[in-house]
């Protein structure tokens, strides 16, 4: 028994000797093809198998045990079918030559080993070998050897297995592992060397400078291009030196500064800088400096990459000059064409016959289009070359919006389109370039006008959004953007319908420019659209931090609780002045430039008052006045009439002038406006008491409204959110409050209400807690009816500072 172990140990020593031999041979043969290397591996492993058989000790007549199977399987596993064939054939031939009763089982064992090795070889295929593969191979080859024993004549086989089974299987396993691990490592070393060869070739042949420095600025590695650029003679002459050894001190100092900042920030830095090349040519290089990290991720140096960009810069400069020249050359004749046509079309030269007038109009419109196109192309070029200059400053948005509307009048007149301004973010400010925002809004407005049906109103709305965001929306009632076009709307020269280019006169660049500008301003441009219902474009911007500003002492109200006034005025200058005066009085304002948009706004939003220009763009403000008084909402809105001819109009409105607070003449006197607003706010004006009923049950709302009768003005809110919106927009003399609302408890509303507003709780919930003085009564739905509540409200009303006047609409 002992001798078998010894014999196998000797075999194992043989394995080691052959592996070292193979290492040397494969190194010598590293330049040969893969095929030759496989054949060599087969031959070496065949030699190992033969000598293993020679050294083995016969355990019975004609039977030998040895480690040949490990050699054969390794040849197949690492060398594929070629190596397997050589090793197998040589081993079989030698085993047959040795002869004896074990010859045929031995041959079978050899074939099994070869099959196991090849099986593993192809199973792994192209992927990387893992330790578990080698372990598995060891176990499989050992198992294959055991099968060899079973092929012996039965009594002899069992006897031999008893003697040699355990030592053989364990030695085959161990030697297979050893061969596997060593060959695998050798393989990896070779791959690494090849990869290195590829990388160093890449770096060596790169015409751009590439080098690595340590944190002190000393070269650790560099390519020949770096050495040439530094005039260092060779790469070896660079290693260990710094920029100070090659450049004047001030220049080296500047380079060092760039490196230090890269090291400190740990980010890649890109610098364009002038350079003098080895051939004394002056030019530009683009430099990339990236931190160089060790395996632990610590920054231990800098990787620098320099590229000669002289040509690109020269090309960019040429392009710039070319565009400048072309635009000038195009614009000069266009100045004459547009000028002549503009003057003729405007009738400066006298009236034209209708046919001629139409043709001149066509020519004029198209010359305008050409002007826009050239401007857009130049803008696009500026943006793409990064030359668009942004003069960013803290900007109040309302004036920018007003100017954008004023600037759009050219487009509007022809189609009878008006722009209404809804300002839901009073005093909003953002840090941006006002001229660029103006450009974006002008573009969006001109689009909205183009795609609106004649006579429609376009809405420009400013809102606050969660997260200190501001949203400027341009909303039209056009045909909407077709589904298929929505994802390319911001692309250059995109037009939903090619025929639109002609009928709508766009350049196809506007939205693309607008989006880029908004993004450069740190915002985003998006849209919502419904086919047939219109489109809203949203410019989202970050609101500037509001500096603490003392609120006016006269009216103490939360900013978001500001009362809203509708300015009904067609002259942009005047509406801007009114808005400014109202803002100073702490009112929010919307602007309606005509009767149609005023009606729309009055229908959809609550206003505490409105200013009305009696001579509204040729329309009669008086007509609007009568319309308001007869309408369902805002019928009792106090009106401040503003007119150039206030006294004259006053007479014509005599008799129906209910709710007219004051008559102001243009130019508006700020003191009189203040007084008029004061009157409205302090509720000296006769009006019906204003009651908010917060209730989600439609039936209760109806019965309560019946019960309260026509002497009060009831607003209803069906959810907590609606109620909060209502009290933010309007003041109420009384609130009837349900507790169980779909989106929360009505009690949450109490903290949002102005402290002086009385509340009656009318709810199914039984409450016995003290809700404070302002809650005048708590009534439970099953115990008291709506009519009881209504009676209580009527009883309470005289205690409020309200005079119920007798005039209701129609009287």
């Amino acid at each position: 028994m002992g001798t078998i172990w010894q014999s196998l140990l000797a075999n194992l020593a043989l394995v080691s000797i052959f592996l070292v031999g193979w290492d040397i041979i494969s190194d010598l043969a590293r330049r040969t093809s893969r095929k030759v290397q496989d054949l060599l591996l087969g031959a070496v492993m065949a030699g190992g198998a033969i000598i293993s058989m020679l050294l083995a000790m016969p355990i019975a007549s004609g039977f030998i045990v040895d480690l040949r199977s490990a050699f054969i399987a390794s040849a197949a596993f690492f060398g594929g079918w070629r190596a397997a064939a050589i090793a197998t054939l040589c081993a079989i031939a030698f085993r047959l030559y040795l002869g004896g009763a074990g010859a045929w089982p031995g041959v079978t064992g050899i074939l099994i080993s070869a099959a196991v090795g090849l099986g593993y070889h192809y199973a792994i295929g192209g992927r990387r070998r893992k330790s578990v593969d080698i372990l598995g191979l060891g176990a499989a080859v050992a198992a294959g050897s055991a099968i060899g024993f079973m092929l012996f004549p039965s009594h002899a086989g069992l006897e031999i297995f008893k003697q040699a089974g355990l030592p053989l299987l364990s030695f085959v396993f161990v030697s297979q592992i050893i061969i596997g691990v060593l060959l695998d490592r050798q393989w990896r070393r070779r791959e690494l060397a090849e990869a290195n060869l590829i990388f160093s070739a890449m770096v060596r042949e790169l015409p751009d400078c590439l080098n690595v420095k340590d944190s002190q600025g000393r070269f650790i590695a560099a390519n020949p291009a770096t050495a040439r650029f530094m005039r260092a003679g060779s790469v070896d002459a660079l290693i260990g030196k710094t920029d100070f050894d090659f450049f004047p001190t001030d220049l080296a100092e500047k380079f060092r500064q760039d490196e230090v900042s890269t090291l400190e920030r740990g980010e890649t830095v890109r610098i364009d800088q002038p350079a003098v090349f080895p051939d004394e040519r002056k030019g530009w290089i683009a430099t990339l400096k990236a931190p160089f990290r060790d395996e632990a991720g610590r920054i231990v140096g800098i990787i620098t990459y320099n590229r000669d960009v002289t040509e690109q810069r020269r090309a960019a400069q040429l392009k710039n000059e070319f565009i400048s020249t072309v635009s000038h050359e195009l614009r000069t004749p266009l100045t004459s064409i547009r000028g002549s046509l503009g003057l003729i079309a405007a009738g400066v030269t006298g009236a034209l016959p209708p046919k001629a007038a139409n043709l001149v109009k066509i020519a004029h419109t198209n010359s305008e289009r050409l002007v826009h196109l050239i401007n857009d192309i130049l803008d696009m070029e500026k943006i793409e070359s990064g030359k668009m200059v942004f003069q960013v400053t803290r900007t109040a948005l309302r004036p920018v919006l007003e100017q954008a509307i004023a600037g759009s009048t050219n487009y509007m007149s022809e189609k009878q389109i008006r722009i209404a301004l809804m300002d839901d973010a009073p005093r909003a400010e953002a840090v941006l370039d006002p001229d660029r925002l103006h450009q974006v809004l002008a573009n969006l407005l001109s689009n909205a006008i183009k795609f609106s049906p004649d006579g429609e109103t376009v809405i420009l709305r400013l809102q606050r959004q969660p997260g200190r965001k501001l949203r400027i929306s341009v909303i039209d009632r056009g045909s909407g953007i077709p589904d298929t076009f929505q994802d390319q709307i911001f692309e250059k020269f995109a037009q939903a319908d090619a025929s639109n280019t002609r009928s709508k006169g766009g350049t196809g660049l506007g939205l693309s420019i607008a989006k880029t500008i908004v993004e450069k301003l740190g915002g985003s441009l998006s849209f919502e659209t419904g086919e047939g219902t219109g489109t809203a474009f949203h410019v989202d911007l970050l609101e500037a931090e509001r500096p603490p500003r003392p609120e006016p002492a006269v009216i103490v109200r939360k900013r978001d609780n500001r009362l809203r006034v509708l300015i009904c005025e067609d002259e942009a200058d005047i509406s801007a002045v009114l808005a400014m005066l109202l803002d100073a009085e702490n009112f929010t304002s919307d602007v309606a430039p005509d009767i149609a948009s005023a009606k729309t706004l009055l229908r959809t939003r609550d206003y505490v008052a409105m200013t009305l220009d009696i001579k509204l763009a040729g329309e009669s403000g008086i007509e609007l006045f009568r319309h308001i008084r007869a309408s369902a909402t805002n019928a009792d809105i106090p009106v401040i009439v503003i007119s150039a001819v206030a006294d004259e109009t006053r007479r014509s409105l005599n008799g129906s002038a209910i709710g007219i607070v004051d008559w102001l003449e243009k130019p508006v006197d700020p003191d009189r406006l203040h007084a008029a607003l004061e009157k409205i706010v302090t509720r000296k004006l006769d009006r019906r008491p204003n009651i908010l009923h917060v209730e989600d049950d439609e039936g209760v709302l109806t019965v309560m409204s019946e019960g309260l009768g026509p002497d009060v003005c009831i607003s209803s809110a069906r959810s907590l959110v609606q109620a909060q919106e209502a009290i933010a927009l309007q003041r109420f003399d009384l609130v009837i409050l349900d507790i169980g609302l779909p989106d929360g408890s009505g009690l949450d509303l109490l903290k949002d209400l102005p402290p002086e507003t009385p509340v009656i709780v009318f709810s199914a919930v039984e409450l016995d807690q003290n809700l404070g003085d302002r809650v005048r009564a708590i009534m439970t739905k099953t115990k008291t009816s709506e009519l009881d509540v209504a009676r209580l409200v009527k009883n309470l009303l005289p205690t409020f500072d309200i005079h119920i006047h007798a005039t209701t609409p129609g009287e």
Partner: protein
Amino acid sequence: MPTKILYVDDEDDIREIAQISLELEPQFEVRSSASGSRALVDAAEWQPDLVLLDVMMPGMDGPETLRQLAASARTAAIPVAFVTARTQTHEVVRYRAMGAIGVIAKPFDPMALAKDVKRLLQERGSGRQLL
């Protein structure tokens, strides 16, 4: 008293159109010069309230004309604005650095030119910075 405006451009067509456009404002009295050197003489003689200068002109170009206007005692006080097709940002910045009170882009809107010029003069009067 009318506001006197001298329009300088080498293109006959544009001079004519600009003259008609500017005269839409009844307050303006408009004359034009066909070259920079001509403009120096006309400005010194006529003493306009504003000189509108084309930039690209053969011979003496706009900027050179502006320099010479500013250098001469008789014309140094006359404000000058450019009317030009070259309105890239760096170009506009350069014009302003030369001392131009404003820049009007070509092609101008003939119906708005007079208004734009009026605004230029008003803003200058109110001391507001342009552009």
